């Protein structure tokens, strides 16, 4: 349990087999997690490239870097890639895949071959989207609103729509695997009330993936059919209803944002108790709040449509429900805070990301309430206020959680420690860069700058310049971990089994773990987060 270094000669999942075939045909959930890590990181950079184009154009009020059409493509593809090819798979497909079997004491997920299939589906969809990109891209906005997408756009809507349709199945299969695994594969003694909150959150996420994704699948299929066969079901001049499209689109896409945030909350629920050396305050409430977010999250979708023409009564109902959905999220924030209270806090890299998450998610969540308020939304809908809101929750929230999780479990995944000083520096740079990028957007949005416009009145320039400056700092913050994590694979200190002295079954096996996770199936007789029985982590580990 002390800092006895693990020799890399010992057989683990990384060196069990060599060769490209052993990776491309693997059914080991840990290897599949790494395959996903590579692919989603690639798409993160493609999506980031489009963000760069957007922020460069917006440095000046005039539309001088690119044409309006090109700008439309830039923000569309930035959004679609980041949402569908990065954020939605990110934590579940990488950390969820890697950790869930270990956390419940199983040898693998319930359906290992389906797990591999889900990655291939992701790759196929990604290739189709890249083909769309290479042949001219798509300019409908990430939301594919009809009738522009179904009739008037001259871009590759069909390819983009089909790509997202296909990647949805990757999501569905991942969710299926997780749900069945958690129900059927828990080790002896691992009851529901002893599950790590990471597993509870991913379970809730999987429910959303299963029940929501099919709707976007059929909706995009209908758009593709409409375009290809000139049907008219979304064309108002032929009796079609564009608002129907929006109902169907948002019925998935709103719960999708909870698919993006719940796994991140899962990570925070693991990091906070570990670096406060205290069990989670109100475990039951945190677990229940995950389920509540998933359930209530399905009831709020039309808050994206307040000004689209839905009835006033309907808007009132959805506004009220949108206020309700904030409650379970707030429960989590309160409980994390209470966990830290009178704990023994250490400012390790994962904990810095967790602090960043809690603050930024709170701002993002509260501004969501502003948007849920009908009267306010009328004014700020389709402005940069909305953009700032969702970037606060998706980047300040979800991505911070993702990075925190990557760092927290990096020793387990790679068998190496990352350089702690660089880790902390990068976390701070990300936090500062993020706020500089997106806080001005709240202001300029409130002042009236519309979203999706490639030129704007000169009085908004100062905010845009600040935002672009922040984006360049944020980019540095994202690049740093790429460099030092890769560096650590070769030169990092060898990681012990449990460098953070964390609870959880994954820390009871070696770093990296053997292919079948445990030498012997564990038998669980303790509750989750029994930090009062754990020794403090090694000074050396924390102060590297």
């Amino acid at each position, binding site marked *: 349990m002390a800092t006895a270094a693990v020799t890399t000669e010992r057989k683990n999942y990384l060196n069990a087999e060599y060769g490209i075939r052993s990776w491309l045909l693997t059914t080991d959930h840990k290897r599949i997690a790494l395959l996903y890590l590579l692919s989603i990181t690639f798409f993160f950079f493609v999506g980031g490239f489009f963000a760069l184009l957007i922020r460069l154009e917006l440095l000046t009020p005039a539309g001088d870097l690119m044409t309006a059409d090109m700008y439309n493509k830039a923000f569309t593809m930035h959004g679609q890639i980041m949402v569908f090819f990065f954020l939605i798979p990110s934590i579940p497909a990488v950390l969820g895949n890697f950790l869930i079997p270990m956390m419940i004491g*199983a*040898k*693998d*997920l*319930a*359906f*290992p071959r389906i797990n591999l299939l889900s990655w291939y589906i992701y790759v196929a969809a990604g290739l189709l989207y890249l083909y769309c990109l290479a042949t001219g891209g798509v300019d409908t906005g990430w939301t594919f609103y009809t009738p522009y997408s179904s009739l008037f756009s001259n871009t590759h809507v069909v390819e983009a729509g089909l790509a997202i349709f296909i990647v949805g199945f990757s999501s*569905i299969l991942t969710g*299926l695997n997780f*749900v*069945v*695994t958690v*129900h*059927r*594969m*828990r*080790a*002896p*003694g*691992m009851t529901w009330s002893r599950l790590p909150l990471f597993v509870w959150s991913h379970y809730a996420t999987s429910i959303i993936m*299963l*029940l*929501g*994704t*099919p*709707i976007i*699948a*059929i*909706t995009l*299929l*209908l758009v593709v*059919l409409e375009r290809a*066969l*000139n*049907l*008219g*079901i979304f064309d108002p001049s*032929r*009796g*079609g*209803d564009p608002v*129907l499209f929006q*109902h*169907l689109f948002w*019925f998935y896409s709103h719960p999708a944002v909870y698919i993006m945030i719940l796994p991140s909350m899962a990570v925070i629920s693991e990091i906070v108790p570990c670096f406060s050396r205290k069990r989670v305050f109100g475990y039951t409430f945190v677990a229940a709040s995950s389920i509540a977010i998933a359930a209530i999250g399905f009831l709020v979708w039309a808050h994206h449509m307040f000004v689209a023409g839905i009835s006033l009564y309907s808007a009132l109902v959805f506004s009220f429900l949108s206020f309700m959905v904030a409650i379970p999220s707030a429960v989590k924030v309160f409980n994390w805070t209470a966990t830290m209270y009178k704990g023994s806090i250490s400012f390790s890299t994962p904990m810095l990301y967790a602090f960043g998450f809690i603050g930024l998610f709170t701002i993002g969540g509260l501004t969501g309430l502003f948007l849920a308020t009908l009267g306010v939304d009328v004014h700020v809908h389709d402005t940069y206020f909305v953009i700032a809101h969702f970037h606060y929750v998706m980047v300040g929230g979800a991505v911070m959680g993702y990075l925190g999780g990557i760092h927290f479990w990096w020793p387990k995944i790679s068998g190496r420690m990352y350089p702690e000083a660089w880790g902390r520096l990068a976390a701070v740079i990300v936090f500062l860069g993020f706020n500089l990028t997106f806080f001005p957007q709240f202001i300029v949005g409130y002042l009236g700058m519309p979203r999706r416009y490639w030129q704007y009145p000169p009085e908004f320039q100062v905010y845009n310049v600040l935002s672009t400056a922040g984006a360049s700092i944020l980019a540095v913050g994202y690049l740093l971990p790429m460099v030092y994590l890769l560096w650590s694979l070769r030169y990092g200190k060898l990681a012990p089994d449990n460098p953070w002295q964390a609870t959880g079954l994954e820390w009871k096996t070696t770093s990296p773990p053997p292919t*079948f996770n445990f030498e012997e*199936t564990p*038998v669980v007789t303790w509750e989750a987060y029994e930090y009062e029985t754990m020794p403090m982590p090694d000074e050396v580990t924390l102060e590297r």
Partner: protein
Amino acid sequence: MSDRAGTGESPLVLEHEDRPELRHHFADVVQQRNAASLGMWWFLGTEIMFFGGMFCGYLVYRRAYFPEFAAGSRSLSLVAGTVNTAVLICSSLTVALAVRASQLGKRKLLVSLLLATMFFGVCFLGIKGYEWHDEYEHHHAPTFYFNAQDLVHNNPNLHLDPQRTKIFFSLYFALTGVHALHMIVGIGIFSVITFMAWRGKFTPEYHTPIEIAGLYWHFVDIVWIYLFPLLYLIDRRPGA
């Protein structure tokens, strides 16, 4: 080892040698079977939502364009629809009997019943194809020289809008088309299962693939059980 609570621990090595179909990450066949079953039920849940999206579109437009929907519905062949519904019910019977045959270890009966199921499935697709061809001939297939003027003329009192009628047919083809796709996939799955059954791969102890393929098939039948009244029986009252 036998006093461990939880998902069921058994002497792993013995179990895995005895039961070659048992995959390494499962503790025993019971766990494997329960996992497969739960997986298929969840998948069917996703399929309910998948078809459900189209049902939502159908519902919205039927409320808005009832006369056109009713006229379009009446133009579908009641006989073909009813017969097809019966065909699928027969196929569900043969699937249920096939599962039973596998539970009792009756290989020849099992293979015959599986073949019968596929036969009924192909019959369904044949009748459906005939209907579609007929609709195409009458210019009721969207995109293929769609023309609903015949319906407009045959229902002078209703003052039908031809474009709204096209929406009915678009949804009709989308719904029955996606359903037919699922039938084709089902027949494909059953052909593999039938081959495996013929080769004697199933026993009373192990016939999980038949059970879960059967669940999928029954689901496709249930979708049609709803599609039939929603598409064919909108308003067939005399005088309508």
